[in-house]
C-alpha cells in the first residue's frame, strides 16, 4: 500500500513541484535586483492563464510543430518517474539507467529543435542551431560526471548509484565533488540558465530556448513552459540525489518517506538558491565562449574519473 502511494507521489511530484522552483528562483533573483518580485506561485497562474487562451498556429507548420509540446512533456515525465526523488526503493530496472535518462531528454530536445525550424521563421532556426550546439557539447560533461558516480557504484542504475554513494565514507568524496562541478556546468547549459542562456530575454542576439518557441501560444506554450520547468527540476533532483544522497529514504516506512520528502525539498531549495545567486552575480557569456566552459565540465569529470581508476 505504501509502495502504491509512494509511486503516485513519485509520478506527480515533478509536474506538481516544478513551477514552484521556477517561481522561487525568479523571486530570489528579483530580491537581488532590489525588486519585490512576483509571488513564488506566479508560474502556476501563468500556466492557468495560457491554458485559457486561444492559439495561433503558423500555416507553414507541420504535425511536428503540433505534437512537439506533448512529446517534450512526456519525456520529462517518464524521466521524472525514473529518478531517485525521495526514496531509493522505487528502483526501476526499466528506465532507471542514467544513459536512458540522458537520451530520453535528448529525445525531447531533438523535437524541440525540429519544431523551432518548422514554422520557418528566422528566429526559430538559429535558436535550434544554438540549442543543438550547446546540448551536443554539454552531453560529454553530463555523461562523464554521472559516469564517475557509476564507476564508484559499479552500476549505471540511478537508484543504485544513490544507494552506493550514500554509504560512501566522507574521505572518498573528492572525485564526487569534482564531478559535481562538471555536472553543475552541464545543468546550467541544459536548463538554459546564465551564463548559457537568458531565460527572461526576448532579444534575438541572446536567446536560445525562447527563440525556438517564439511561434507558440496558448495551451501548447503552456505545455512547453511546464516541460521546461520539469526539466529544470529533474536536473536539480539529479544533482541533489546522486551527488549528495544523504537523507533519502532507503526503507519502506511512512516516517522515512516523510523525512525523505522534506529533506529532498530542502536540498532542492539549496540548489535553487545557489543557481539564483550565481545568476545574479554574473553576466551571460558570448556564445563562442560557451564551448570552453562545456569542455571544462568534461575535463573536470575526466579528472574525477582519473582519481578513481
Amino acid at each position, binding site marked *: 500500500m505504501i509502495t502504491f502511494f509512494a509511486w503516485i507521489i513519485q509520478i506527480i511530484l515533478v509536474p506538481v513541484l516544478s513551477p514552484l522552483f521556477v517561481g522561487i528562483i525568479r523571486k530570489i533573483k528579483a530580491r537581488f535586483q532590489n525588486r519585490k518580485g512576483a509571488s513564488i506561485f506566479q508560474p502556476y497562474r501563468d500556466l492557468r492563464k495560457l*491554458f*485559457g*487562451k*486561444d*492559439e*495561433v*498556429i*503558423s*500555416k*507553414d*507548420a*507541420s*504535425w511536428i510543430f503540433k505534437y512537439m509540446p*506533448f*512529446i517534450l512533456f*512526456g519525456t520529462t515525465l*517518464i524521466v521524472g518517474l525514473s529518478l531517485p526523488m525521495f526514496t531509493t526503493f522505487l528502483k526501476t*530496472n*526499466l*528506465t532507471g*539507467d542514467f544513459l*536512458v535518462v540522458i*537520451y530520453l531528454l*535528448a*529525445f525531447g530536445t*531533438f523535437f524541440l*529543435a*525540429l519544431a523551432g*525550424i*518548422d*514554422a*520557418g*521563421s*528566422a528566429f526559430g*532556426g*538559429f535558436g*535550434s*542551431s544554438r540549442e*543543438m*550546439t550547446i*546540448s*551536443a*557539447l554539454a*552531453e560529454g560533461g553530463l*555523461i562523464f560526471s554521472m*559516469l564517475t558516480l*557509476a*564507476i564508484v557504484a*559499479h*552500476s*549505471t*542504475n540511478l537508484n543504485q548509484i544513490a544507494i552506493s554513494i550514500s554509504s560512501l565514507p566522507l574521505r572518498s568524496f573528492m572525485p564526487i565533488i569534482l564531478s559535481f562541478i562538471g555536472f553543475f556546468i552541464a545543468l546550467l547549459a541544459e536548463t538554459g540558465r546564465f551564463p548559457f542562456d537568458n531565460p527572461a530575454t526576448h532579444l534575438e542576439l541572446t536567446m536560445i530556448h525562447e527563440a525556438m518557441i517564439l*511561434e507558440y501560444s*496558448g*495551451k501548447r506554450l503552456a*505545455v512547453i513552459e511546464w516541460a521546461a520547468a520539469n526539466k529544470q527540476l529533474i536536473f536539480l533532483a539529479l544533482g541533489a540525489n546522486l551527488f549528495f544522497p544523504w537523507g533519502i529514504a532507503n526503507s519502506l516506512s511512512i516516517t522515512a518517506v516523510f523525512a525523505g520528502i522534506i529533506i529532498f525539498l530542502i536540498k532542492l531549495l539549496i540548489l535553487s538558491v545557489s543557481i539564483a545567486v550565481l545568476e545574479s552575480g554574473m553576466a551571460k557569456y558570448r*556564445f*563562442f565562449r560557451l564551448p570552453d566552459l562545456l569542455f571544462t565540465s568534461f575535463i573536470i569529470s575526466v579528472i574525477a*574519473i*582519473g582519481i578513481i581508476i
Partner: protein
Amino acid sequence: MLTSQTNFIIALIFLAIGSIGSLAFRKKDSISNIWGNTFAAAGSAFGLLAAARTLFLNDIFSFSLPSTFPILSFSFKMDYLSAFFVFVISLIALLTSVYGMGYVKHYYRKYDIGSLGFFYNAFIAGMLLVVTANNALFFLIVWEIMTLASYFLVIFERNEPKNIEAGSLYFIMTHIGTAFIILAFLLLYKSTGSFDFEVIKNSAGLISPLTKDIVFVLAFIGFGTKAGIIPFHIWLPSAHPAAPSHVSALMSGVMIKTGIYMFIRIFLDILPNTPLWWGIIMLLVGSISSLLGVLYALSAHDIKKLLAYHSIENIGIILLGLGSTLAFTALGLNSLAIVALIAALFHTLNHAVFKALLFMGAGSVISKTHTRNIEEYGGLIKLMPYTAFFFLIGSMAISALPPFNGFASEWLTFQSLFAGIQSSNMIAEWSFVIAAGSLAFTGGLAAACFVKVFGVTFLARSRSEEASHASESSISLKVSMAILSILTLVFGVLAGTVATSLSKVSESLNTLKGSGVAATIQNLSMTTQNVFASVSMPGILLGLLIIITVTVLIVNFISRKQKEITGITWDCGTKPSPRAEITATGFSRSIVTIFRGILQPTKQTDIEYHDANSRYFPKTRTVNLETTDIYKKYFYSPIHKLIIKVSQYVKKVQSGNVNAYVLYIFIVLIILLISGVIK
C-alpha cells in the same frame, strides 16, 4: 524444408539468372528492371532463409567445389558468424531490390538498365560469397567481383564527370587496400603453408608473434580501407553519393561491413592470443573515425555525402565495440569481450537497417527534386509525408534516441566501454576513457546533424521551384521504407532477444569459445563480474506512448473551448519568405566554428558593384564557406608529393638511350653472377 546449403545455392543461382537475364533484356528497360530486381529479391530471400536456418536451427554447412588450380579451392563455409553477415546482407538486399523496382524507373531511356541489373545482382552475389568464402585465394576472387561490380555501379550515371572521378578514386583506393590484404594472406601462407582458412586456424600456433603483428597491420589497413576508417576513407564520401540510391544503401549499409566481418574473422577466429595493443589501436582509430566522421557530416550539404560521412562515424562506433573485444580478450576478461562483441555486431545490424532507410529516404527526395543539395529542399513534409515520416524514424535511430535500435546498440557499446574503464590496466583504462568520451560527443553531434538534415529538408517552406512541386514517391519505395522503419523499431524494442541471439554468434568464435557464463544479457539487462546495468526497451516504448497519449488527451480536454487559429509566421512584420529560413550552412556554422581547429573553415567573399568606381551599391555578394580536408592536407598530399618526387628521380634512369639500357642489363647480369658465385 530445404537445408541451409540448398537455400544458399538457390540464392546464388537466382542472382546469376537475374544478372544474365537483365543483360539479355537490355533492349527493353522496364522488363530488364523488373527481371533484375525480382531475381535479386528472390535470391536475397533465399539467402535470408539460409542464414536463418543456420542461426536458429544450427544448420551449419561447408562444402567445396573442385578446381583445376592446385592451391585454389572453391570452398564455402557458413558458420554462425557468416550466417549473421549473410542475414544482414540478404535482408538489406531484399528491401533495396523492392525499392529498386520503383526507383530505377527515373533512369529509363537515360542510362543502360540492363547493365545496372547485371552489376547489381553480381554485387549482391559477390557480397554473399565474400562472407562465406573459406579459402584465401577464392576470397580474393570474390572480393574482386564485389569491388568491380560496385565500381561499375558507382559510375552508372556516367554522364556526370564527377561520378567518373569518384569511381576512379574508389577503384584506386580499394585496390591499394587489396594489395595489403594479399600481402597479409601471403604472410599467413608462408607460416602455415595453406590458403585454407580452416587450416590456417588450426595451425595458427606456427605463426610467430612478429608475423602476427605484421598481419594485423596489413589486414587492418587493407580491410579498413573497405570499411572506411579514417584516414583510409577518402573514397567513401565521393563514391557512395555517386551510385544510384538503392545501391548507396547497399554500399553504405552492407558492403563496408564486409571489412568488419574480416576483422572479426581474422582477429577473433583465426589468430589466437592477440596482444593488447591491437585492441587499443582499434579503440583509438574508432574514436577518431566516429568523431571526425560526424564533424565532416555536419559540414556537408550534399544529402548523400552527409549520410556517407555518417557511415564512417558508425563504422567508428562498431570499431569501439570490436576494439573493446580485442582488449578484453587480451586482458583475459572473456565475458566482457562477449558483451562488447555483441555490441559491435548489434550495431552492425542496426546501422545497416537505419542507414539503408536513410539512403532510401534521400533517394526518394532526390528522384523528385533532382538535386542532392539540401539547401534547395524545404517544406517536403507536406508534399512527401510518408518519406518524411520514414526519414524521421531513421534520423531518430541514428541519433541513438530510445526506443529505436540505434540506442540499444550504443547503450551496449557504452556499457562495455564503461566496464573497460574499470579494467586494471593503465593504458587500456585511458584508451577506454578516450573512446567513451568520443562516443559521448558523437551521440550529441549526430543528433545536431540530423536536426539539420531533417529540418532543412522537410520542414518550413520550400526553397526552390523543384522542391515546391515535389510529390510522394511510388508504392515500391514506400513499402520498402516502411518495412525498414518497422524493423528499426522492432530491433530496438526486442533488443534483448536480438542480443541473446548474437551472444550465440559471439560464443562460436575460436577465441571466445565457452566463456559466456559470467555475462548475461537478457532483456538488455547486463550483469557482469561487478557491473550491473539494465534497460527495458519495451518499457520505454510503452511509457512514452502512454504518457504522451494521456498528456494529449488531458490538455485537449482542459483547453477544449479554446480555438486554434491558423496564421502566418511572425517575422518582424515582413512577409516570411524562404530566404528568412535558416540554411544548412547557417545551422552547422556554429559547430564548425567551434571545431575550427579540426575542420579549418575557409571563407571567401566576393562583391560585385553596380559601379566599380563608387563602391557603395553592391549588386551581388557571394560568400563561399568551405571546410578543408585535413587528412588530404596532412596525409594524402605529402604522400602524393613524395611519389612525384621519387618518380622524378626514377625518370633519370629511363633516359631513352639504348646504350644505357644495355649497360643496365650488363650490370644486373654481373651482380647476378657474383651473387650466384658467393652463394
